[in-house]
């Protein structure tokens, strides 16, 4: 990969990250969670506000994330032209998948009376992932970590929309989840292959993951931060337990899934090794 120039990067909260992709003027891009506009209506369970505005906000945020995932996969194709053709085909296919996801979410948003640019958005995943100068680190961060986390979120959200009586959106998210499993799976498969061929890439992966954790810590809102809608940021989120079934399909090992369950507070149900 060619070294990034100063024009390719920006500084957020003192950390140098990849400068965000091009956006139409209708989008308001913010750099911090506290600048987003998620509501936390007390009539709903914490982090599960499904009022009309929040429904559109959820779809809008997801639509923008899928577009950003497309941009990350596309940029990775450009940045690593010498990688194996088989892996480039996976990334190219991912581009189409993410395009379709973003397009169906835009369609759904418009059906709900919303429009692109209606809510503020962030470039958080792009900022971190596209800063990496190794393909393995990008796969580990974007596909395995961010999209792996999206599998957990989507499982909760499918039920959230279904419970809210919106079967159309629930079915749409189920379709997206199915595609995301493969994006995580091919990353897991290729990370193993790449590490087998050259164990030194594990150092790149570790460096990348450390960077991601550092940025996440620095960017994380404090418990008392209030966002653009006047809601405490902490009240706009809910836990997303590990999606065990889909992580298995995505070729996470039992040991890796066990570790995630321990982080969720379910360590007591994880079988002990041996």
């Amino acid at each position, binding site marked *: 990969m060619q070294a990034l120039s100063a024009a390719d990067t920006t500084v957020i909260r003192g950390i140098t990250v990849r400068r965000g992709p091009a956006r139409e003027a209708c989008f308001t891009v913010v750099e911090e969670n506290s600048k987003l506009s998620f509501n936390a209506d007390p009539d709903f369970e914490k982090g599960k506000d499904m009022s009309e505005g929040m429904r559109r906000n959820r779809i809008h945020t997801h639509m923008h994330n899928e577009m950003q995932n497309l941009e990350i996969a596309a940029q990775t194709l450009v940045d690593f032209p010498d990688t194996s053709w088989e892996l480039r085909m996976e990334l190219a296919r991912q*581009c189409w998948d993410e*395009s379709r996801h973003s397009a169906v979410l835009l369609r759904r948003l418009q059906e709900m009376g919303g429009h*692109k640019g209606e809510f503020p958005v962030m470039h958080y995943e792009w900022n971190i992932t596209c800063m990496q100068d190794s393909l393995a680190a990008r796969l580990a961060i974007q596909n395995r970590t961010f999209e792996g986390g999206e599998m957990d979120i989507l499982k909760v959200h499918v039920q959230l929309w279904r419970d809210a009586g919106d079967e159309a959106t629930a079915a749409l998210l189920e379709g997206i989840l199915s595609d995301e499993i493969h994006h995580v799976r091919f990353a897991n498969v290729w990370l193993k292959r790449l590490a087998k061929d050259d164990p030194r890439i594990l150092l790149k992966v570790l460096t990348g993951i450390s960077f991601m954790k550092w940025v996440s810590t620095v960017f994380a809102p404090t418990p008392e931060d209030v966002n653009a809608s006047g809601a405490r940021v902490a009240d706009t989120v809910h836990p997303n337990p590990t999606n065990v079934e889909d992580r298995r399909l995505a070729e996470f090992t039992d040991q890796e899934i066990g570790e995630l369950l321990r982080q969720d507070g379910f360590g007591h149900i994880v079988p002990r090794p041996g």
Partner: protein
Amino acid sequence: MGLSVSDRGKAVATFRYVHVELMETLAQWTPTCPEMEVKLMLGEHIWDAAQNADALGKRTRELRLPLQHSLKPVDAYVTLLEEIRQEPDTCRRLSGLYDAILPGLDARYHAYFEQTDALLDGPTVRILEQVRNTSARMIKQSRELRAELPAVGNVDHGWIETLKQRDSRIPTLVS
């Protein structure tokens, strides 16, 4: 008499190079075009170009070349592709690719059909027929999008004509 195995291999490997280049061009434009609907169309076409390249790359092995083998086209065509790839304006990007380069390639596939033995070289002909169908869909989608979003539909006709003329003056892509 048709084309030799070597001629066919070189032509297929050269077409493969072009489709890999198109895939990379579309990928480069995706984060740098501001317009959302354009990005989403490019994302689909990245996969189309990749599939074209993949099919051609499987055929190279059948024609005594390595699997997924590419051959760089003649310099004039490489320069043409590179200039379009580096074009910063969305309108020019779309018109350059969908109104000049893809139609120009279609004419080259047609010329290949006229030279090759369609029975002996049936597998290449089938692949190129598929590539032509895909390209026709890509062109149609780009026209529909530009009709829907007039802001990205402004075509610099003089520039497009110049591109077409430069393309047509290159007798063969095979170097």
